[in-house]
C-alpha cells in the first residue's frame, strides 16, 4: 500500500470535498480520525457546510462536524480580536508589522482561512524595530514565555525571531520574526522586499499581510525547513488553497521571479511538487521545470520519500513502514538547514541533556 492509499479517505476528500457526500459510516470513522489528527477536521466541516452537503452526511457524523465548526469559529473570532490588540499595542512603531500564516489568512480573508485552526500568531517586523516592538508588546501584557536563559540567548543570538511571547491574561502566544529563516540557515533570504511590498489591512492600521507571492513562499519555506511535521499536511493544504486562489497567467512568472529574488527556489520547488502529487493542485508543468534552484534529479525521489512520510505522519493509520526513520531524518534535516554543524552539535547536546528538566 502506498502513502496515498494509506491516507484514504482523507486525501480523496481534500482533493475533492464533494466526495464527502458519498462516504459510508466506516469511511467517516477513518476520516474523522485522520482529519482530527492532522488538524483538518474543522476545514472539512466548513467545506461540508459551504457545499450544502449537510443533509447527505450520516446523522452519527453530523455532531462531530458541528463541533469542529464551533472550534474554527472561536479561533477565528479570537485571532481577529488578538489582531486588534496587536494593532493598538504596536501603533507607535515605524515600519510595517506583518501578520504571517494563519493570522494573515484570517485577517485578509484568504481561502486557507476557512475552518483553519491556529496555534501561535506569527509576526514579521523590520529587524531595526524588534527592540521597540518587544517593549510595546510587553507594555500590552505579552511577556517572554517560560524559556531558560540558554533558550533566551539561543533565540536572540542565532534565531530569526524573539523568544515566544505569551499574554499574561489571555494566554495567546506571539512569535515575532525579523526574517523567514534563522541568521544561521544554509539558505539566506531577505525580509526587506517582503516588508516593502506588504499589503495594508484596512481595519487594522499599522498591520499588514505579505503580498500573494510572498504568502506562498513563506508558507513553503516554513513547511520545508521545519523538522517537525505534525502540521505538515495542514500547511500543504494552506499552500494548495493559496495557489488555487492566486493561479493565473500573470501569477506563475511573478512567483518564480520572486522565488529567485528571495533565494527561496528550493522550498518552492518542493512545495509545488508535493501540492501537485498530494492535492492535485493545478501547477502548470513548465512552472515546476522553470523553478529556480531545483534540487538535482538524483535527489528528488529521495526527498519525496522523506516528505511523503512527513506529510502522512499525523495519524498512525497513514504512516508508511519506516516512517520513524524518515521522520528522524526530517528532524535532523530541519536542524541541519537551520545552522552549521559547529553550532548544531552543541545545541542538540544541550537540548538532549536538559530535556527532562522542568522549565520555570
Amino acid at each position, binding site marked *: 500500500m502506498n502513502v496515498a492509499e494509506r491516507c484514504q479517505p482523507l486525501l480523496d476528500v481534500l482533493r475533492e470535498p464533494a466526495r464527502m457526500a458519498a462516504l459510508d*459510516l466506516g469511511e*467517516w*470513522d477513518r476520516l474523522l480520525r485522520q482529519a482530527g*489528527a492532522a488538524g483538518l477536521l474543522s476545514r472539512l466541516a466548513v467545506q461540508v457546510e459551504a457545499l450544502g452537503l449537510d443533509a447527505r452526511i450520516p446523522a452519527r457524523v453530523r455532531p462531530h462536524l*458541528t*463541533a*469542529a465548526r*464551533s*472550534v474554527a469559529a472561536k479561533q477565528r473570532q479570537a485571532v481577529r480580536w488578538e489582531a486588534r490588540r496587536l494593532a493598538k499595542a504596536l501603533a507607535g512603531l515605524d515600519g510595517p508589522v506583518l501578520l504571517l500564516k494563519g493570522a494573515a489568512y484570517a485577517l485578509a480573508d484568504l481561502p486557507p482561512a476557512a475552518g483553519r485552526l491556529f496555534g501561535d500568531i506569527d509576526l514579521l517586523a523590520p529587524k531595526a524595530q524588534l527592540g521597540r516592538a518587544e517593549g510595546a508588546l510587553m507594555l500590552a501584557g505579552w511577556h517572554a514565555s517560560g524559556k531558560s536563559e540558554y533558550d533566551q540567548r539561543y533565540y536572540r543570538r542565532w534565531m530569526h525571531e524573539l523568544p515566544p511571547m505569551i499574554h499574561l491574561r489571555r494566554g495567546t502566544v506571539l512569535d515575532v520574526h525579523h526574517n523567514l529563516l534563522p541568521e544561521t540557515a544554509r539558505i539566506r533570504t531577505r525580509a526587506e522586499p517582503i516588508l516593502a511590498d506588504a499589503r495594508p489591512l484596512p481595519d487594522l492600521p499599522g498591520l499588514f499581510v505579505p503580498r500573494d507571492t510572498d504568502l506562498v513562499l513563506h508558507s513553503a519555506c516554513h513547511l520545508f525547513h521545519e523538522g517537525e511535521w505534525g502540521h505538515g499536511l495542514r500547511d500543504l493544504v494552506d499552500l494548495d488553497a493559496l495557489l488555487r486562489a492566486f493561479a493565473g497567467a500573470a501569477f506563475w512568472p511573478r512567483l518564480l521571479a520572486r522565488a529567485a529574488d528571495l533565494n527561496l527556489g528550493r522550498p518552492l520547488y518542493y512545495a509545488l511538487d508535493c501540492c501537485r502529487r498530494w492535492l492535485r493542485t493545478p501547477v502548470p508543468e513548465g512552472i515546476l521545470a522553470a523553478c529556480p534552484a531545483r534540487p538535482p534529479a538524483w535527489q528528488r525521489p529521495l526527498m519525496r520519500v522523506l516528505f511523503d512520510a512527513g506529510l502522512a505522519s499525523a495519524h498512525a493509520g497513514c504512516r508508511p513502514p519506516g516512517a520513524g526513520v524518515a521522520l528522524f531524518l526530517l528532524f535532523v534535516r530541519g536542524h541541519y538547514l537551520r545552522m552549521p554543524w559547529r553550532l548544531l552539535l552543541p545545541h542538540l547536546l544541550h537540548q538532549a541533556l536538559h530535556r527532562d528538566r522542568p522549565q520555570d
Partner: protein
Amino acid sequence: MKLGELSARELRERLADNALVLRTGPFATRMHSSLPQVADGLLRLYADFPLEDGAFCDFHVRVGPPKGIRRWLKPQINFWYDGHSPFKPLPANHAFALLEWGMNWCVAGHAHHYLMLHAAVLERGGRALVMPGDPGAGKSTLTAALMLSGWRLLSDEIALIDRDDGLLVGLGRPVSLKNASIDVIRGHFPDAVIGAPAHDTHKGTVAHLRPTADSVARVGEKARPAWVVFPRWRKGAEARLTPHSRAEAFLHTANHAFNYSLLGELGFELNAALMDASACRDFEYSRLEDAVRAFAELAAS
C-alpha cells in the same frame, strides 16, 4: 446486546482485540485494553450499558502500559486517544480510574455540539436538577445519594446542553466518589455497587458507583432544566435551600464550563436559557437523609 451479557472471559478477549464498543448516552467508544482491572471494572459498573457493532465510533481509546524501560522498574499505565496520549502515565493500579477520566476527557475535549458545564445532572418527574459545585462541596456524595433514592442520573461531572432545544442530555456513566464519601455512600446504601478503589490518585482515593438501571435504560430521554442548586456540606448544618442570584449562577457556570467560551454567543444564549428556566438555590446540609428529603420536597413542589 448489553455488556453484562458477556462472560468475563469474552469481555477480556474483546477488550484485548480492540473489539469492544460501548454506548454511553450519545457516544460510542471503542475500547482497547488487555488489563484485567479494566475488564473487571467495566463488568461491575457498566453491565447494563448497550454494546454496538462499531461501524462508527465517536472515540477510540486504549489503556495499557507505556513503552520504555521504566515500565520494568515501576509498573505504569497510560491512556491513548486514537494513538495520542493526553495525560502523564499513572501507577498501574489506577487503570480503571484513568479510563473513566479518559472518557470524560474525550467528551469534554470534543463534544462542542453541546454546551458542557461542570455540573452533575439528575432528573425527577421530567424536571432536571443541575448541580454545579466546587471540589469538596459534597456534590458527588449528594449526586450518588439522590440517584440511589429514585432520581435518574444524567451525569455526575459534565452537564450536556443540547444546542437545538436547550435540554439536558444524559451520559448515565458511573458516579466518581472520593475519599470519605465512598464509605458514607456504602453506609447509607448497603446495596450500592462500588468498583475497586484507586488509592493515592491526584484526587485522593477514588471509587466509582454503578448507575441505577433506570438511569442507564432511560439515558436517551432529555430533560428540561428546572433547578440550578449549589450544594455545600457543612458540619452540623440543617438541610436548607436558600435563593441564589441567577446572575452569579450564570457567571459561576460560565467560568467553570468546559466550552462556554469556545461557543461564544451560543454559549451565552444557552447558559442564559438555563438560568431563565431554572430556580437557583444554595443548599447547605450535613446529614444525607435530610438532604434526600429536602430534594424530594423540591421535586414535589
